[in-house]
């Protein structure tokens, strides 16, 4: 994307005022979005984003500058201006930019340009049609499709030159059902590091009917009761609780600043012995996977918790300095307008030994949170709250009535200790995680688990 000699010049300019590390991140991303609704191609948008971010370290302090005026003169000017933010004595740093060898795992089979926008839009219309035909109560089906191709270059004063290219696609369906002036919505998506093969080998009709059925069944759901109860959390997106209430607390972004409940807990029992959890950016074609992180470190599979014991944090280069730890390939950013920091990729609780059915059968009274909505947690004290999109009562070991409006509240530490059954049906979901360095694709996952005694906030 940029000439090696120019990049070296930029890095040297960045180091001219005493910085001890400098990097440049260059990004060129092409995005296409389609939206069909009410049997029409409602919107088609596209865009090209091209820009660069320059980061300089002076110990644990840093400067970040970005621009999309990409001519030589302005890039050097930006580096120079950034360097003015460092007031130290010039270090003797020399480097030779060498290609970082990467295993490019997520090659796509069918490039996006193999089909026209019209052909893709027709597929969206077909998927919406399946949903609209699923029930006379479904009054609206919105299909959205997004594809991005992101080319990146990360070069730094350690001599790293890492170029990568990742294609990512996501299909999202949202349905609304209506009856007797009650309106309810449901949604579901699938995606990953795929080209047009994303749609192959999937039963799109079943997918659409499933979403439609969810919005229809909510119409007759009762309000969820409130109080403390046992909660069985379904697999897949159920992992969002682990992501928010534990995952963020393990990011060096918070740990290095003494702003996490997980500070100083490596080697300690922080969860039930049934819990083993990973952050793994190397899973083939998974939504949150990347070959190399956004500061030029190869990604890896990290065990975060093993049998309840905290094993690892997610560490980026800058916070690693604060913590005296090596970066472990998890530094990410939405785009060149953000400085990178430690983030999650594909984060999940690993399979246990129970089955989903055993967990339900062993629960006398509680809630089955089949599909979680979103939520958030405060890494400082672990307090979280999440909404449940689809929930049922469990009575005498059986799933009974559907309920709506359920919210789970509590603290991450407490929930991790109170997990007393873990099933063997782990799957990953696609999501967007928003934090300090912007909104990034991240997968959450888990098998079905049971947590004793959570506060459920209901509407009655």
């Amino acid at each position: 994307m940029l000439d090696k000699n120019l990049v070296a010049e930029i890095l040297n300019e960045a180091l001219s005022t005493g910085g001890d590390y400098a990097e440049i991140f260059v990004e060129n991303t092409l995005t296409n979005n389609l939206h069909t609704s009410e049997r029409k191609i409602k919107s088609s948008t596209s865009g090209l984003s091209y820009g660069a971010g320059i980061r300089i370290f002076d110990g644990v302090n840093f400067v970040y500058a970005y621009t999309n005026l990409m001519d030589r003169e302005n890039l050097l000017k930006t580096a120079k201006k950034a360097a003015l933010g460092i007031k130290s004595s010039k270090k003797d740093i020399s480097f030779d930019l060498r290609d970082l060898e990467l295993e490019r795992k997520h090659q796509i089979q069918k490039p996006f340009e193999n089909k026209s926008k019209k052909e893709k839009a027709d597929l969206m219309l077909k998927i919406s049609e399946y949903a609209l035909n699923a029930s006379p109560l479904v009054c609206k089906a919105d299909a959205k499709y997004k594809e991005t191709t992101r080319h990146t270059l990360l070069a730094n004063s350690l001599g790293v030159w890492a170029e990568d290219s990742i294609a990512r696609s996501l299909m999202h369906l949202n349905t609304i059902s209506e009856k007797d002036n009650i309106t309810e919505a449901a949604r579901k998506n699938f995606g990953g590091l795929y080209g047009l093969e994303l749609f192959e080998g999937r039963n799109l009709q079943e997918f659409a009917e499933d979403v439609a059925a969810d919005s229809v069944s909510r119409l007759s759901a009762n309000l969820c009761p409130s109080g403390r109860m046992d909660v069985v959390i379904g697999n897949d997106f159920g992992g969002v609780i682990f992501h928010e209430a534990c995952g963020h607390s393990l990011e060096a972004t918070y740990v290095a600043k003494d702003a996490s409940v997980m500070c100083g807990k490596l080697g300690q029992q922080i969860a039930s012995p049934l819990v083993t959890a990973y952050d793994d950016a190397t899973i083939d074609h998974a939504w949150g996977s990347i070959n190399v992180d956004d500061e030029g470190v190869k990604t890896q599979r990290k065990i975060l918790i093993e049998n309840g014991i905290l094993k690892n944090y997610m560490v980026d280069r800058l916070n690693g300095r604060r913590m005296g730890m090596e970066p472990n390939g998890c530094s990410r950013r939405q785009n060149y307008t953000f400085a990178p920091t430690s983030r999650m990729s594909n984060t999940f609780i690993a399979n246990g030994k129970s089955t989903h059915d055993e967990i339900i059968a062993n629960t006398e009274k509680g809630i089955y949170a089949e599909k979680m909505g979103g939520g958030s947690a405060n890494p400082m004290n672990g307090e979280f709250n999440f909404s449940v999109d689809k929930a049922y009562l469990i009575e005498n070991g059986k799933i009974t009535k559907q309920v709506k409006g359920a919210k789970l509240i509590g603290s991450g530490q407490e929930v991790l200790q109170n997990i007393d059954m873990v099933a063997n049906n782990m799957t990953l979901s696609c999501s967007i995680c928003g934090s300090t360095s912007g909104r990034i694709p991240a997968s959450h996952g888990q098998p079905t688990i049971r947590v004793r005694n959570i506060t459920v906030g209901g509407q009655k």
Partner: protein
Amino acid sequence: MQAQEFIEKLYQASQAQDINQFQIDYSQNEKFSLKAMDGKIEKRSFNNTQHLDFSIKEGKNIGSFSCGELEEKNIPLIIKEAKENALLMNNEEENFFFGEKREYPLVKRSRPIKEFETLDKEQFLLDLEKAAYTHDKRVKKVIFCFMDEGKYQSAIRNSLGLDVNEGITWAYGGIYLSVEENGIIKTASEFVTFDKEEDFNPEFIAQKAVEKALKKLNPIAIPSGKYKIVFENECFADFLNLTKSIFSAASMEEKYSKLGDKLKQKIAADSITLVDNPLLDNGYRTRPFDGEGYPSQNNVIIQNGVLQTLLHNLRTAHKFGATPTGNGIGNGSRGVSFSNFYIENGNLSKDEILQQTKDGIYITNLIGTNAGYSAASGDFSYGAEGFLIKNGKIDNALNPLTISGNVYELWQDIELIGNDLKLMPNGCGSPTIAVKPMQISCN
């Protein structure tokens, strides 16, 4: 290539291709940020970026392409993509560019005030951090102090003759910290926008943040059930921001608002007047025109509880036979943009509201608000922080709460309105609000 030169070339290339109607939206953004931690300036950051959206109208639809790299080599791609996008869409309703000659209102914006120019910003942040630690020994960690300032300029030019531009400057600063007592950790933040004298006083800002966090210590649990609720002004402004789309005509057509057939009907308590006022002096979202270049006007949405209008862009106004309200986004977007969106003051002080409520819950913060609201049904269930109201006074802090209800019912259930309107940087604003009992769960 210089932006002006690029825009001129793109304009000429579009004309050369006999494109009937097209529009160029250009913006330039400069920002400078500082972050302090542990007695040092931890982060300095700045940027200079530009952005362009090019839109083409083909038939009834407007297609667009967005691009940051303004190089001549990209012009064919920009035109091809915008055209392809426009030709692909098959919406029946018509989309419009605005090209009428109109007078634009003069708007008053003076934020930050001139003292900001001479402020030693790095020292200010270091003083702010220090002031927090000095104020109370229970301060566990000043997680960060920050300051952001910027300049944003935008211009819209189209083939119908529209040629408008404007620019704003802005600044924010703030502190985020935690306090600890008896193993309980609580966090709080405070921000300023440098538009009044006290915003330049680190001790005052730090004290407010620390006191806010300290009040949350030693929380108690309460049984789940229905409680009378008083929303702090800032908190209800946050609630308005989360649920404001019910007043958008674009949401209504997407079935995410149930107010489409409620015009001239009573949808809220008698005393409610709700406006979207882009002409407000010194509002955070004050603007002379909207994203489509349509002149700004003050829109009264609810007057004395009666719905007067939804907010429209050019497309929705035409589709629903309404007058445009100046709430377009532009760039071919189908949506509606809000400006300064707030509930007008009532005549009670916050203390009078608490006294009249006597017993209930004072909600100060909604959390986890990225989920918990169903736009289709209007049902919401949010995490919250709050305090007990006992004998008309704010009492103990409460353990984490959830508050549940339905947005349409809540507008009807508002009982008391304060005289302490607070506008937030997201453009939303509210006075203190008391409502009939709502469902609360407590951890």
